């Protein structure tokens, strides 16, 4: 049965962070999820379509770049559901940027850590969680989900984006 990981406010709405949900496509799994937790409906859907600001990742890949709600799911598939952001919050998945390194930066920028996965900076809060790694062929690239909210969200978000800059070759 496909696994579903929930993040941030989705955890508050369901009271859990991990679930197993029946379904052969992304759409079927989300429909069954909404049936179990009706409060998720307006968060996940706009009419029949996936809400624009929700991020749904299948094994690390955004399902929008696959087949959307029709994307087929193997029984061992893992979906990551990131909530829609509101009130000036900004969010992104970063690759090859470990959580421990982000924490080092946040601490060096004067951040305080009230709880695991959360830092308070002047004018902003930063939430983060390790997402499912992006798996492509024989490569597995770690992914870190980060959300920044508050009056100074944009400035802090840009600072994190800059620090997380990577490339390759």
């Amino acid at each position, binding site marked *: 049965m496909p696994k579903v990981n929930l993040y941030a406010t989705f955890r508050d709405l369901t009271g859990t962070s991990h679930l197993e949900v029946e379904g052969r496509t992304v759409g079927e799994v989300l429909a069954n999820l909404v049936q179990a937790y009706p409060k998720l409906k307006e968060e996940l859907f706009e009419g029949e379509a996936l809400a624009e600001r929700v991020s749904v990742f299948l094994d690390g890949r955004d399902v*929008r770049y696959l087949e959307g709600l029709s994307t087929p799911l193997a029984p061992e598939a893992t979906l990551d559901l990131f909530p829609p952001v509101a009130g000036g919050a900004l969010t992104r998945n970063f690759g090859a940027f470990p959580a421990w390194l982000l924490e080092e930066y946040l601490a060096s920028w004067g951040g305080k850590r009230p709880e695991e996965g959360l830092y308070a900076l002047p004018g902003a809060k930063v939430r983060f969680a390790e997402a499912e790694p992006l798996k492509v062929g024989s490569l597995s690239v770690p992914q870190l989900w980060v959300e920044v909210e508050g009056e100074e969200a944009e400035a802090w978000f840009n600072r994190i984006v800059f620090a997380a800059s990577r490339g390759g070759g």
Partner: protein
Amino acid sequence: MLGGYAHRIARIDLTSGKVEYFAPDPKDLEMYVGGRGLGVKYVFENGPQVDPFSPENLLAIMNGPLSGTRAKMSGRLAVVTKSPLTGTVTDSHMGGWTAAKLKWAGFDGLLIKGAAEKPVYLLVKDGEVSIRDASDLWGKTTHEVHRILRERHGEEADVMAIGPAGENRVRFANWINNDERAAGRGGTGAVAGSKRLKAIVVVGKQDHMPQPKDPELWREADRLASATINDPKNVTAPKKGGLSLYGTNVLMNITNVMGALPTFNAQHTCIDGVQTISGEYIREHRLVKDNTCHACPVACKKMVEVHVNGKTIRFESYEYESAWALGAHSGHTDTDWTGYAIYLCNAYGMDTIEAGNAIAVLMEATEKGYYQGEDGIRFGDKEGEIRILEAIAHRKGVGDMLAEGPARFAKAIGHPEISLEVKGQSIPAYDPRGLKGMGIAYATSNRGACHLRAYTPASEILGVPYKTDPLAWEGKGKLTKLFQDLSAFTDSLDLCKFSQFAEGPEEYAKQLAAYWGRPVTPEEILKIGERIYNLERYYNNLAGWAEGSDYLPKRFLEEPSDCAGSKGQRTELDLMLEEYYRERGWERGVVPPAKLAELGILSQAAGD
């Protein structure tokens, strides 16, 4: 005085035999760092109008401030010159230990001009450079030269050599060192051949390793860099991550599934049976040993053995680009013949990417009747491929035409459209119909089509630093500028490109600050990268690559991809160029004076 440097560069005139030494200007070091950046600065000062094969062309062999230190992945050496293939400024980098030993021998670089009357090699040792007779080495393969010169100067000696292709001015001849690492692209080996310079021997010992100016900051910087590279979840993790286990060739199966592997000279975007030239297959069936370069825990180098006509051939390395060019692009996926072709290119000293493109262009020309000589070959003709590689290196038959580069060959037979080139340099192993970012990266690369100026597959395939849709053009101009600037900087340190899969501006800035002994901000290093990229572009503008020279082969713009993953796709170059030029502040590919002034290039160019 900034730390990390030997503060000594040799100026070698092969015409007169004179060698002089000077300390690089501290202002140049702060603005251009070393490696690629400082090399480009010296090549720029030598003048963009120079004929690449004239004695006046400058051949710069450069290391960087982190070369020869304990900084992870700091084993890269930059070769910078005016390219005989493209007419642009070009830089090409080799791994191994040459860069480190050059530093330990007391040098930040060698600036070579003139042309010797007879073949020569350079001996670099104890802060001195001497010019030696190489008459007995002329005509020999790179492997033979490595063996002879290491017997002569000891196993501690590091040798970089050109092969017969460089001697014969094959426009894509390269340098190969004794770890079989190549400064592959742009024909820097042909420039050496035109100067009758066969090899450079570097003798240096680790006890001359530079120490950081700020040891406490270095401990912190090294801790962070090492921890990110060795993070067991990352692709760089030694003996765990995909890049460590399979090397560059881990990409082969992936790009094939995405419809992003140019095959049969990019008439198709995938190939059946690609598995047999993939990194996974090579590891299981042909691997001998995982070797590495100076200060690198990743060990992506793969020593392999292939078997052809009853002979076993051992070499390094079965890289992704090489396996693609001499295999899939040439219409076959034969494990052993592809390996043999790679080995031969290394022996003769030729860029495997350009050589594979030359083969593929000849194959398409033969099949379509554009070339009707008896020595034409068709796709999949593995033995014919070997014959043509030998013909190119020795400039025999059609090989003489192909030695001018596939772009010139295609033009000479009246069909320039079958050469997949930008500014005269052929494409590497990513099809921009399946990876749109590579389209803008190829078009705007200052050294011609190249995957190493801006590696957009990091984002489009691996989600680094964030995932983008490989089939979307939006945002790729901005991404390309970031990658180009970051790479221009790391090429100047000079660190391996793989370091970017783990490290970012914060980690690089800390390491440089610890060595330089003065604060360096992450913003400053990207500004340095931008300055280098703009100086290269300014050079190219002055050398004749002006408005309209950021183009792509028509095939990618007009002929749709035919493979799953990218079927029906073409490359939207104009839209990406518009976005890119806006990010750069350029006018249709030309650097305006205001940008040159902003980056401090114009005042230097004017001699202020």
